[in-house]
């Protein structure tokens, strides 16, 4: 009796366990084998069929590529494409784990915290040069500007093919310009009258500082780029030139040079001396931690990434786009944020992955992607014509001029090109905080930053 009871108990527990496993395993109706990420060995069905995995961010402006898969698979019956997704914050950790676990995806881009240089220096990327030669790949077929193809080359070897291009541009609140009786800023990069000083002058006329936070508004919010890149706008270069050719490892940095210090001072003067730009506390109180006070209608002009265009249809005010004013650097006025498609070194099917990449670059797919993604800027200049017309209430001609001017006067964002960038960026945020709150001067902080950058780069 006793033994029987005990047995019953044990059997019961085993049953529960089995039920648990069965329930969880069958919930999706698929077995682990045929959905293993990056496994590729799914040739159980058709002979010689391979599966490639495209790893991307789990947000609608990235996952739209799932809708492009059926057509591709129809054209390439031997290739299946699986889109694997992760949230932004976990993008890098999942990628590292997948690679370490032998489940490397085939195609991805630097969508997480780490940029191209980080991936390259960790040896994660496949050299595409031979693949391209074998295939006879010509960027001109896909209307990709030649200079963009140069960005992800290291020692003349190509490691990434551009697919999207964001730039830094100026967006302005037309309602605020009208209220101040100011003319709209020009979209033409060749208009020499549009300078940094003129922008400050306009900004002064739109700034209202009041005790009532609801009435306060500022003339300009000049983000332009990541913190370490800002001096470039005024012509000061904080990293040695070899950084851009050797895969992102600077032999020297100049963050404590007088030119760099002067550049930062000019920018912080907008907040503390001219008082035409908001402090970071004010921005956060108006727009939240990662929000943008421009979107709340509290800023006259904002200089930042062109992704702000995508939300412009929802803004409760009229907007326009303009060229980034000239600030003393004749060659660089804008940043480029070019996303390349890269094949990972551990990919088991690089050839098939390359077919998929080429497909994503064709005129038709690049144009289709604009609508599907809700306004991702194509790298293909033919498809770009459709992009210029995508934004309600903004002159397509202005968008075109601004994007083309930015491409001409643009430099790829440092966050893609410098190694250990996530650490450098975190350090910059921490060290510059006291300047942003007005507790320390640029002169005090920059030598510390110079020392810390050197330490990070020597790791």
């Amino acid at each position, binding site marked *: 009796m*006793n033994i029987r*009871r*005990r047995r019953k*108990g*044990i059997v019961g527990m085993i049953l*529960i*366990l089995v039920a*648990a*496993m069965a*329930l*969880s*395993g069958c*919930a*999706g109706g*698929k*077995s*682990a*084998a045929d*959905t*293993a*990420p990056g496994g590729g060995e799914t040739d159980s069905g058709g002979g010689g069929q391979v599966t490639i995995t495209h790893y991307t*961010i*789990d*947000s609608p*402006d*990235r996952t739209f590529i799932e809708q492009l898969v059926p057509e591709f698979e129809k054209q390439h019956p031997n290739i299946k494409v*699986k889109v694997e*997704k*992760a*949230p*932004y*914050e*976990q993008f890098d*950790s*999942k990628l*590292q*784990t*997948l690679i*370490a*676990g*032998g*489940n490397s995806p085939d195609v991805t881009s630097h969508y997480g915290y780490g940029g191209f240089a980080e991936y390259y220096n960790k040896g994660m990327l496949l050299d595409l040069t031979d693949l391209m030669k074998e295939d006879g790949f010509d960027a001109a077929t896909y209307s990709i500007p030649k200079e963009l193809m140069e960005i992800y080359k290291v020692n003349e070897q190509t490691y990434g093919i551009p697919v999207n291009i*964001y730039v830094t541009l100026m967006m302005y609140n037309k309602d605020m310009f009208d209220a101040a009786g100011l003319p709209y800023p020009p979209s033409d990069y060749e208009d020499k009258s549009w300078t940094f000083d003129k922008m400050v002058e306009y900004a002064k006329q739109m700034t209202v500082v009041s005790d009532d936070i*609801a009435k306060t508004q500022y003339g300009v919010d000049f983000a332009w780029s990541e913190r370490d890149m800002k001096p470039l706008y005024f012509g000061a270069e904080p990293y040695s030139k070899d950084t851009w050719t050797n895969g992102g490892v600077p032999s020297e940095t100049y963050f404590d040079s007088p030119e760099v210090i002067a550049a930062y001072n000019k920018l912080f003067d907008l907040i503390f001396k001219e008082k035409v730009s908001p402090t970071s506390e004010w921005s956060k109180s*108006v*727009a939240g931690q990662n929000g943008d*006070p421009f*979107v*709340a*209608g*509290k800023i006259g002009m904002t200089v930042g*990434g062109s*992704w702000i265009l*995508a*939300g412009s249809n*929802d*803004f*409760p005010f009229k907007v326009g786009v303009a060229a980034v004013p000239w600030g003393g650097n004749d060659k660089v006025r804008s940043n480029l944020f070019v996303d390349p498609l890269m094949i990972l070194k551990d990919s088991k099917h690089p050839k098939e992955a390359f077919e998929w990449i080429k497909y994503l670059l064709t005129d038709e797919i690049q144009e289709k992607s604009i609508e599907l993604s*809700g306004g*991702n800027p194509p790298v293909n200049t033919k498809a770009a014509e459709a992009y210029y017309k995508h934004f309600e209430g903004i002159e397509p001609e202005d968008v075109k001029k601004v994007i083309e001017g930015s491409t001409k006067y643009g430099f790829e964002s440092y966050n893609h090109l410098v190694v250990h960038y996530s650490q450098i960026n975190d350090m910059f945020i921490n060290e510059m905080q006291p300047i942003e709150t007005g507790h320390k001067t640029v002169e005090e902080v920059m030598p510390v930053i110079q020392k810390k950058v050197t330490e990070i780069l020597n790791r």
Partner: protein
Amino acid sequence: MSTVRTAAERGRPSFETPGARKPDTVKIVSFLLLLATTFTMLLPLFFMVSTSLKSSREMLKFPPTFIPETWSFGNYLEIFDTLQFGTLYKNSLIVAAMSVLGTLISSALVAYGFARYRGRGNNIWFMLLLSTMMLPYPAIMVPQFILFSKLQWIDTFLPLIVPAFFGSAYNIFLLRQFFLTLPDDLFDAGRMDGCSELRIWYKIALPLSGPALATVAIFAFIYSWNDLLTPVLYLSSSEHFTLPIGMSSLTSSRFRIPPWHLLMVASVLAMVPIVTLFAVAQKQFVEGIVLTGIKS
């Protein structure tokens, strides 16, 4: 009412009156303070619900509106389209329920062993068990991933559920401490009546441990319900995603304004099981305390 009060006052000796009034003011002040704190604590909650009912345009307004100008109840339907919210919710519930079950069974069994049996190296094993709490998840992330991918468990719920059936150090510790407080007399009585050890465990120890088990269940549920990194690593197709993955996808775009109103809808709905669990477990707490009564 007033007559009762006057009668009571009349009955009291007069010198007591100032002393009696003092606690009253203390009471009133503390009541007001508590009331103020409650409101402050509830304000974010209120704001969450209010934002969940705003339109996407109103969400961007500054200064923000406290009560929505137009009530967009449609948000609560929209989320089922944009997020496959039903699937996410179902998946999260399956994983959480299974994790709770697994944690309860395994942790209670192991904890019972540690609490009631003496064996060689008992303490060393226990220390070893506790030391696993020191291991941060990222340290075991990759080896565990390799293990589960060799088992072909990637993109199933198994990596999220099966580990729960192997106990968790913190919960074992918690239950062991509780089992230690149970009087030996009960177990001796059970043994004398010819009860098997396993039966003593589930007929005597478990029913007496309601509050502790409820605590463990809540911990296990909340842990699994909120866990983001593990599901992100192991799940790869959208139909297997859990709620935290879906919700973080709403803020994942670097290039779009996050749909805060939809995120708040998701947050409100995600709170429901936790609030329910607390309500149910609270009853369990009270009953557990009533049942443990033994006189010695």
